[in-house]
C-alpha cells in the first residue's frame, strides 16, 4: 500500500477507535448501578486513550520505517552485487543505484537488459522494495489493530484514563518544545561535519587567513590553472563592507524615525506611520534584490559616471544601500521598544530642570536606552550579515579584496548560493567549502545574537 493509503486507513482507524472506546466505556459503566458516575474519567477520555494506543505506536513505526527503508534497501542491493562491482567504490555504486531507481520509476528497465549485473541488481532492488512496502503495511496496520485491542482491554471504570491521556499530551508538548533544540543541533551537526571534511583537504589557516578565493577545482588531474584556493578573507571583508554601508544608512534613519515616532508624533500619525514602516519589513528580500539590481545599481553607476567616477555595475554601494532600506524598520521598531521602556519619571525630571525636549532626548533618554539600542543594532548587523537574496542579485560573484564601496565585492552568502546551486558531486571541496562558510556565518551571527539578546534582556530587567 502506498503511504497515502496507509495514512488514510490510520485516520479511519483513529475515528473508529475513538467512537468504540467511548461507547465501550459507557457500556462498561452502565453494568454498574451508579452508571456513568462510576467511571474515573469522562467517556471521551477513554476514547482518546484508545486512540492513543491505536495510532501512536503505528505512527512511530511508520515514521521510522519511511525514514530508513531507502537506505536499508540500497545497502542490501549493494551487498548482493558481485564483489568486483563492489570494489569500484561508492561513487559508481551510487550512480548504478540512481540509474536503477530512475529506470524503475519510468518503467524502462529493458534498456539495461543486456547487462546481467545491472539487471540482477535492478530485480533485487525491485523485489526488496515490494517486500518492504508490503511488510510496512502489514506491520503498521498490525500494530494499529493490536494497539486498538489492547487499548479497549484497558477500558475499565477504575482506569485513570484522563491522567493517562494528559501524560501523553504533555509528553507530546515536550517533544514539540524540543524541536527547537533539535533544529539547533541539526544545524550545528550538518555544517560541522561537512566542514571537518572540508578542513581535511584545505587547512584551517588557509581558509581563515588566505586572501585569495577561487573555488574552481580541476575536473581532471592534469587540468591547468584551476587548482582552487579557499582563502575566505575577501568574502568576509566583502560581507563586512556591504553590512557596514547598510548600517550607516539604516541606523541614523531608523533611530531618528523611532525617536520621532515615540517622542514627537501624535498618536494618530503614529498609528499610520508604524504599520507603513513595517511594510518595508514585510517585503520579500528577493524584491529588494530585484530593485537593487535593476534600478538602484544602474542609477548609482550613471550618477558616478556623470561626476567622473568609475562605478562597477554590481557595486557594493548599491547592494548595501538597498539592504540598509530593508533593515530600517528593524532598527526603528527595536529602538522604539527600548525608548518606550525608559521610565517617564526620567523625562519628567529633565523637563523639570528646564531642558527642552531634544535636550532631554539627547542627554537623558538616549543614554538611558543606549544598551537596548546597541543590542538592536547588533541584531540588525546580524541580519545584514546573513542576508542573502539582495547580495546574490546585486553584488558581485568574483572575490575582490577591497574597501572601495564603488567596486564589486562578493559576500559569504553569495558564495554559498553559488557553490551549492550548480550541479556538482556532493563530496568535492567546492561544495564542502559552502558548509565551511555556513559554519563561519552561523558562528558570527550566533555570537552577535547572543550578545544582543543578553544586552537587551539585562536592559529590560533594569527598568522592570
Amino acid at each position: 500500500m502506498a503511504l497515502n493509503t496507509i495514512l488514510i486507513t490510520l485516520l479511519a482507524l483513529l475515528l473508529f477507535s475513538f467512537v468504540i472506546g467511548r461507547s465501550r466505556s459507557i457500556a462498561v459503566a452502565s453494568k454498574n448501578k451508579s452508571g456513568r458516575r462510576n467511571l474515573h474519567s469522562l467517556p471521551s477520555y477513554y476514547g482518546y486513550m484508545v486512540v492513543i494506543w491505536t495510532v501512536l505506536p503505528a505512527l512511530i513505526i511508520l515514521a521510522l520505517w519511511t525514514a530508513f527503508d531507502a537506505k536499508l534497501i540500497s545497502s542490501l542491493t549493494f551487498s548482493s552485487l558481485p564483489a568486483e562491482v563492489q570494489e569500484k567504490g561508492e561513487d559508481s555504486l551510487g550512480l548504478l543505484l540512481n540509474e536503477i531507481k530512475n529506470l524503475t520509476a519510468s518503467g524502462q528497465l529493458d534498456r539495461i537488459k543486456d547487462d546481467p549485473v545491472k539487471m540482477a541488481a535492478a530485480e533485487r532492488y525491485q523485489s526488496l522494495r515490494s517486500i518492504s512496502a508490503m511488510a510496512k503495511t502489514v506491520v503498521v496496520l498490525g500494530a494499529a489493530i493490536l494497539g486498538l485491542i489492547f487499548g479497549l482491554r484497558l477500558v475499565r471504570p477504575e482506569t485513570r484514563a484522563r491522567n493517562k491521556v494528559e501524560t501523553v499530551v504533555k509528553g507530546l508538548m515536550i517533544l514539540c518544545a524540543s524541536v527547537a533544540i533539535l533544529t539547533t543541533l541539526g544545524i550545528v551537526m550538518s555544517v560541522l561535519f561537512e566542514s571537518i571534511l572540508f578542513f581535511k583537504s584545505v587547512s584551517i589557516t588557509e581558509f581563515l587567513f588566505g586572501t585569495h578565493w577561487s573555488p574552481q577545482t580541476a575536473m581532471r588531474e592534469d587540468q591547468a590553472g584551476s587548482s582552487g584556493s579557499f582563502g575566505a578573507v575577501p568574502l568576509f571583508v566583502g560581507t563586512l563592507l556591504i553590512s557596514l554601508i547598510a548600517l550607516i544608512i539604516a541606523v541614523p534613519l531608523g533611530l531618528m524615525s523611532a525617536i520621532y515616532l515615540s517622542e514627537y508624533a501624535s498618536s494618530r500619525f503614529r498609528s499610520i506611520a508604524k504599520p507603513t514602516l513595517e511594510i518595508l519589513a514585510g517585503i520579500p528580500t528577493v524584491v529588494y534584490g530585484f530593485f537593487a539590481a535593476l534600478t538602484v545599481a544602474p542609477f548609482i553607476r550613471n550618477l558616478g559616471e556623470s561626476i567622473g567616477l568609475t562605478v562597477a555595475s554590481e557595486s557594493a554601494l548599491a547592494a548595501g544601500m538597498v539592504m540598509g532600506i530593508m533593515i530600517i524598520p528593524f532598527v526603528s521598531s527595536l529602538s522604539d521598544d527600548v525608548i518606550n521602556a525608559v521610565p517617564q519619571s526620567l523625562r519628567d525630571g529633565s523637563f523639570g530642570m528646564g531642558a527642552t525636549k531634544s535636550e532631554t532626548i539627547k542627554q537623558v533618554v538616549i543614554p538611558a536606552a543606549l544598551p537596548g539600542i546597541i543590542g538592536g543594532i547588533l541584531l540588525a548587523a546580524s541580519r545584514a550579515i546573513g542576508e542573502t537574496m539582495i547580495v546574490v542579485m546585486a553584488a558581485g560573484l568574483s572575490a575582490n579584496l577591497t574597501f572601495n564601496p564603488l567596486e564589486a565585492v562578493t559576500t559569504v552568502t553569495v558564495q554559498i548560493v553559488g557553490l551549492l546551486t550548480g550541479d556538482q558531486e556532493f563530496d568535492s571541496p567546492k561544495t564542502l567549502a559552502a558548509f565551511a562558510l555556513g559554519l563561519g556565518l552561523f558562528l558570527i551571527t550566533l555570537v552577535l545574537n547572543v550578545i544582543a539578546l543578553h544586552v537587551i534582556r539585562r536592559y529590560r530587567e533594569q527598568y522592570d
Partner: protein
Amino acid sequence: MSTTTQRVEAGLKKRYAKEKRFRRYGMISISISFLFLLLLLTDIVSKGLPAFQQSYVQIDVTIDSKTLGGITEDSTEDELFSARYSKVIRNALKEKFPDAKGRKQRRALNNLVSKSAAYQLRDEVIKNPKLIGTTASYWFLAKDDIDVFMKGNIDRNLPESDRRIKDFQLAWIDMLQAEGRLEKRFNTVLFTNSDSREAEQAGIRGALMGSLYTMLITMLLAFPIGVAAATYLEEFAPQNNKWVDIIEININNLAAVPSIVFGLLGLAVYINFFGVPRSTPLVGGLVLTLMTLPTIIIASRASIKAVPPSMREAALGLGASKVQTVFQHVLPMAMPGILTGTIIGMAQALGETAPLLMIGMIAFVSDIPQSIMDPSTVMPVQIYLWSDSPERAFTERTSAAIMVLLAFLISMNLVAILLRKRFEQRW
C-alpha cells in the same frame, strides 16, 4: 535681573532652534523611509503593469491536409497529435507576407508568432478534425519581441542596427496594425501557464501551485508544533529549570539565524541523510517549518502570557485539571494572538527565497506540480529565476510576479491586522 537668568535667556533662542532642527531631522528620516517605500512600489508597479497585457496576432490559416503530412479528418488522435502544424503556420505567414526574402527575413517572419501557435492549432484540430482543409483566421500569441515593441519599449527612431526590431519587421507590424490584426489583450497566459524559456509563454501558475503546496506543509507542521511548544513553555514547564532555559535561549536565537543556514540544514539532513526528494514542496515545507517555528512560538507565548491568571484560577477552582484548563480556556482565549503570529510567520515563509535555493527548488520546472512530491518552484524563486533572464519581456513578467506575490503578502498581513483588531481583548 540676575546674570543666570540673562545667560539662560540669551541662549534660549539657540536652544529652541536646536529643538526645531532635531524635530525636523526625525521628520526627514521618516519621510526618507516612506520615500524609499514609495519608490520601490512605483518602480515595481510601473515595470509590472504592462505584463498584464499581451499582444496577439491574427492570421488566416489554411489547414491543408498535404502540408500537415497527409493527415485527414479520419486519422487517429496520435496522427493528429504529431502532424506538422508549425509548417502550416509558416505557410500562412509566408502567404500573408510574400515579400520576405532571404534567410534572415524568413526567420524573422516565422518569429512573428510564438511557438505556441502550432500547439494552439493542434488542439483546435484535435477538438474538431473537420477543420482540416478549411481556411479560417486565428488569433495567435505574438513573439516576445513584437510584444515588447507593441508596449512602446523599442524606440522606432533609433538607427536600425541598435534595434531588435528591424525595418522590414516594422513594415509588417504597421501593416498588421492597420488591418486590426495585431492587438493587446489581458494576459491570461501569465496565470494559466508554468515557466517557459519563451518569455511570451511563461506564466506563474506552476510557481503559485508550488507555493501553495509548500505553505500547506509548513502550516500543517508549524502551527501545531509551535502552539504545543509555546503552551508547554508558558504553562507546564517547570520554572528555573536549566533545560527550559536552554530551550528558551535556543528559540530566541533561531529567530535570528540567517535563513540560508536553514537551507544548509535542509540539504544536509533532509535530502542527504533522510533521502527526501529534492526540489519538492515537501522538503521546502519542512525547511520553512523550522524557519517559521520561532516566530510562531514567540507570538503564541506572548499571547498565552496575556491571558490573566484569574481565568486559570476560575477553571481550576471548578475542578478542571491543568490540561483541561489550558486546552479549554486559556488557548481559546489566546487564539486570536496565536493566529495573528501564525499568519505573520506564514507571510515570512511565503516570501522566503534563500533556503529554498539550497534544496533545489531553483530547478527549471515547466510542469504544474500536482502533488507535494512533484518537483516545483515557488513564487519568490520564480521571481529570482526570471530576474536573471536578460530579455526585456522577462523583466516585465518578473515585476508582474512580484506584484502578485506582494498582493498575497499584503492581504495576509491585512487579515492578521484585522484579526488582531477584531478579536484582541484587553484584560
